[in-house]
């Protein structure tokens, strides 16, 4: 048995091509593009249009990293991954960074050989139910069955919540998000549970969106953010500060339209790369942060363009507002 195990493990190794890569930045530079793991289609976060162009909050993180490292936000190779595949793809070196609505949990951070580089959306788990059920709160869903996507924290949160409230439930677990939606639409389950940000998008794609309602309850915290492999601290810093640059730009009031205007503000000048040596420690060009803001925009721009009130997803800023405006978005000091 032991022999068999080793054999199968070895064949796995041959096929997945495990590799430990210590210098992701120079790899990205020599390839001329950033390999970025995204979802197979989540409206507002990472979704391809009919001509194959990706857009969304998570995609903007990929673009920001490409702008910082390669000077061109378009130089990204998107690798669509299911929830089950994502960590293996990152661990095995198939992608350079994972930006795919991935919840930052202690287990993932500590035992998968991965590092979470920050949070680009503070989410929580919510519920969508059939309007005809006349349900107003999760507390009314005792004994109900739920459609869930496999391989997500959702499965665990649901079990935790119902156990702590002494309620019963049935879980029907599907492989992908469209299948989960299909099960819900066909009446296989009473409710669909997922991150609140995705529920709005899913509801808008139902055949009859008015037949379902999203409940107000949120049962968990789901901080979503980009993930990198452990063992390459410089790359970890680049990803972390690319995201911070977008948040910092919004705080400074700099947008893609105004980044190149001459400013007397020391903060803006550092962002423009006119002063300071932030780039040297990261091994990037002086205009790395400027490229991010001019090509991708600041965090607020990205938010409004992809999931803001003017889009079909229509999510309010909520906690994803800057700390100075009552939210919890906060970039460490950019100096």
């Amino acid at each position, binding site marked *: 048995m032991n022999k068999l195990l080793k054999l*199968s*493990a070895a064949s796995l190794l041959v096929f997945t091509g495990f590799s430990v890569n210590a210098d992701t930045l120079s790899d990205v530079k020599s390839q001329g593009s950033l390999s970025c793991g995204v979802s197979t289609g989540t409206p507002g976060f990472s979704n391809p249009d009919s001509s194959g162009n990706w857009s969304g909050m998570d995609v903007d993180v990929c673009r920001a990293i490409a702008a910082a490292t390669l000077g061109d936000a378009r130089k990204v190779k998107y690798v669509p991954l299911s929830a089950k595949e994502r*960590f293996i793809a990152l661990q095995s070196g198939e992608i350079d960074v994972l930006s795919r609505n991935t919840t930052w949990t202690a287990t993932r951070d500590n035992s*998968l050989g991965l590092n979470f580089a920050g949070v680009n959306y503070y989410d929580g788990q919510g519920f969508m139910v059939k309007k005809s059920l006349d349900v107003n709160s999760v507390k009314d869903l005792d004994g109900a069955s739920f459609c869930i996507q496999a391989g997500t924290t959702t499965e665990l949160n649901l*079990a935790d919540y119902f156990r702590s409230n002494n309620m019963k439930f049935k879980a029907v677990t599907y492989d992908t998000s469209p299948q989960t939606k299909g099960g819900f639409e066909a009446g*296989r389950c009473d409710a669909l549970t997922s991150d609140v940000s995705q529920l709005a998008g899913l509801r808008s794609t139902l055949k009859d969106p008015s037949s379902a309602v999203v409940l107000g309850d949120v049962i968990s915290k789901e901080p979503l953010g980009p993930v990198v492999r452990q063992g390459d601290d410089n790359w970890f810093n680049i990803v972390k500060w690319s995201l911070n640059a977008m948040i910092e730009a919004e705080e400074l009031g700099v947008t893609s339209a105004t980044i190149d205007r001459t400013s007397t503000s020391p903060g803006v000048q550092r962002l423009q790369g006119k002063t300071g040596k932030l780039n040297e420690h990261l091994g990037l060009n002086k205009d790395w942060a400027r490229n991010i803001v001019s090509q991708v925009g600041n965090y607020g721009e990205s938010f409004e363009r992809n999931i803001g009130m003017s889009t079909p997803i229509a999510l309010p800023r909520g906690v994803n507002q800057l700390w100075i405006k009552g939210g919890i978005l906060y970039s460490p000091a950019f100096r």
Partner: protein
Amino acid sequence: MFIKLKSLLYNNEVRAIAFQVLAVVFIAYFVYQAFDNMMLNIEQSGIRSGFGFLNDEAGFAVNDNFFLTYSPTSTNLQAFYVGIVNTLIVAITGIFFASVIGLVIGIARLSSNYLIRKMATVYIEIFRNIPILLQILFWYSTALSVLPSTRNSMNFLDSVFLNSRGLFLPKFIIGTEFYLVLASFIIGIVAYVFIKKRSTKKHDDTGIATNTIPHFLGLVVLLPIMAYFVFGAQLEYPALKGFNFQGGTDLSIEFFSLAFALSVYTATYIAEAIRSGIDSVDKGQKEAAAALGLRQGQAMRLVVLPQALRVAIPPIINQYLNLTKNSSLATAVGYSELVTIFSGTVLNVVGQAIEVIALTMLVYLTISLFISLVLNIFNKKMEIKGK
């Protein structure tokens, strides 16, 4: 000495062995290096390794669970067992129905009745030529849209309910009464087997046939039912409470769709194997059976099929193996078998791909080898003796 060595070098037999030993050493070294390299990489990239995760709390719920105790507080190992049992149950169900359908269709393929023959051909040509994954998804979405919702369930005697979520059945409450009923059922079967053996022997010795159907009905059907009423075993009935049926036991619609699709698909191959088996039996055998005065059905059952199966069993073994492996497509419809539970949810929670996938592969390998073993023994038994 030197000459002796030299002659060894040119000895064909020695050479053959030497090259084989070299090949084994080379492969073993390669495997060892690859494994060593992998373990080193895993350690360096800070990924947890080993099988300690099996004792961690699973934390997720499972929809289909047949006999095992499982709740979100159970361990990953228990989730693993639930996955294995669910895989086995859907495989066994599929193998049973695929064999029955396959046998019927295979015989129908050779029927002298034009309509039956053509219908069997159409069945085979349609279901054999559509990918199994599409068929699973098709039957699943059909079942979901055709069957009524929970509140409008089909109701059979207020104890069995069918709706788009599954089949809800009453369940025995395990206790002394239940074991007494179970015991009477087993006694009934043993007694019937005994009677059947005696009647077969009587038939062999004297040629007088005894009808054992009344014995079957009395011992295997009536006796347990009587025992049920005499001992007063308690049943727990499913009842609609709130959103779903509570109590009793249930078979999910995912299970039905998967088992049905696998049976219907694999039956086409089994039918073809049976047909070619029957075709291989010499025509003279059938004529001889007819000359002995056997009716058509008897000739098929007693003369043709035993010889046909001899040819058909090896390809049928392959189909049983395929069915078992195809059951892993369940992940598309959400039936909680091994791949869905273990290399799906557990893998994502613990993230140890190599251990999880290796264990999953090991299970499939074991199941497949076991099926091969059993059927090879059966095949040996069916072979012409003395050949």
